[in-house]
């Protein structure tokens, strides 16, 4: 929860003056939900060389005779 608190405080520092109490509470809940999704990502095992899909590359294989054929075929 420390990370949620840190992000909440930073959000209030930047935008707090335009937020009602109800909106602040809601942001706190949203940040907690986001953190729980991030935890699922951080639990996923990665190796050093696993590259990001920062430009999504589709895995398109060759089509032959109406069937999808792997590149090595």
């Amino acid at each position, binding site marked *: 929860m420390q990370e949620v608190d840190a*992000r*909440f405080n*930073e*959000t209030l520092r*930047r*935008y707090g003056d*335009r*937020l009602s109490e*109800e*909106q602040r*509470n*809601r*942001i706190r*809940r*949203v*940040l907690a*939900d*986001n953190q*729980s*999704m*991030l935890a*699922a*990502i*951080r*639990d*996923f095992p*990665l190796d050093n060389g*696993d*590259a*990001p*899909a*920062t*430009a*999504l590359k*589709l*895995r*398109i*294989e060759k*089509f032959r*005779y*109406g*069937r*999808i054929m*792997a590149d090595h075929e």
Partner: protein
Amino acid sequence: MLDEKILYLSIRELQAHLRKHSFSPVELAKSYLDRSQRIGSKLNAYVTITEELALEQARAAEREILAGRHRGPLNGIPYALKDLVAVKGYPTTWGARPYADQKLEYNATVVEKLNQAGAVLIGKAAMIELAGGLGYTNGYASLTGPCKNPWNPDCWTCGSSSGSGAIVAAGLAPWALGSDTRGSIICPASWCGVSGLRPSFGRVSRYGAMTIAWSMDKLGPMACTADDCGVILSVIAHDARDHDSLQPSEAHFRYPAPELEPRMPLRVGRLTNVWNKIDLQVQQAATEALRVLERAGARVSDAQMPDGPFEQAAELTILIEAASAFQTLIDSGECAKLADPLGQINGYASRAFSASDYLQIQRVRTILQQKVDKLFDSFDVLTTAGQPDLAQPLVQPTSKTPPHEERAEPVEPRAPDGVSSLCGLPAIAVPCGFSSNGLPLAIQFIGRAGNDHAVVAAARLFQSHSDWHKKHPDLSRLQHA
């Protein structure tokens, strides 16, 4: 005005009538315009009706057809366009109050392609504000009010392509363009009982369309039949100008193209592990739809979506990319003008993500993409219900949970919309039945990245052995309201 039965004909049928001069493009456009004006406003289906442009384009098509010149399958065929796509001379509101007066003085690439094809723009379809880019909680999150489901106006159409779904279902236009970042075509197609195709990522240019998430946004057609979706995609596909477009050799979508379609028997993978919970009627309809496919010669067997945080990666990618896409709106405080309380504040929370969060998500995404791709070594298409539930009422029963105790729904890590959107896969939803209270039910087919032909072929096979797509709502309740 032309009879309602004609206005629900498929694009191929309408085109055949136009070529036979059974009626003219102008008669056709006027009939859809009249219907759109009478019924569209009762459904909150349109932001703008482009009558002047429609009649100008219809007259041009009429002249050409009379002269024996045929531009192709959409020549003289009316359509509607989700209001996140730029059309020169008309407002492009993105469905949101901060952009209510926005005019983009150019045409999106997809509009240019449709203009060249001789299509006739009837109007700009209502949508969820910013296509849900900053979050929303219900159908009221729209500049034009909640879009009502033609099958039951007390129910929602789903979003964010709300108007596009309602317009096709109510026969206000034979097809409409929607957009899909994570389910915004598949869900309204399912709840409105129409066919909705989300093409592979990069298949259709997004130049001139509002961005939510660069790595996930797609434009695609919603129409009466899967075949119509294929016809439309063949016209709007391919443009090399977007930096993330498919390569030209891959981006064209020739249709029909029997040599590119899966050979029979079609290998269908029935996904058994994608929903936390699913409505029994939806489940039964999807099961029966697979029996129809089996009788039509498909080979159906169980498939398991691989484990992994697909939904989380999809949701987080959208939140972070949207925080960047709408940074000006967020930092200016103008997001306070959005209708939905979540949309008003969600951008602030999303600005708290770090660059390393984003890169971590995208590293996981690469591996998830590879895992899903392997499934298609065994199957031409994967299938499950279009949505796990029925169209929801516009007015939800009041929650007894105090707002400060509100919690998000449990995440469904393998929800099909999240998986397929994260990985850029094509999908199509088509109607496969009705609930006991008359709401549409749908099945969806998901294909390998780039294999849009497979999903269209699967849906077309189903529709050639069923007639759910030929059912239309009784709008008399609306017309007399």
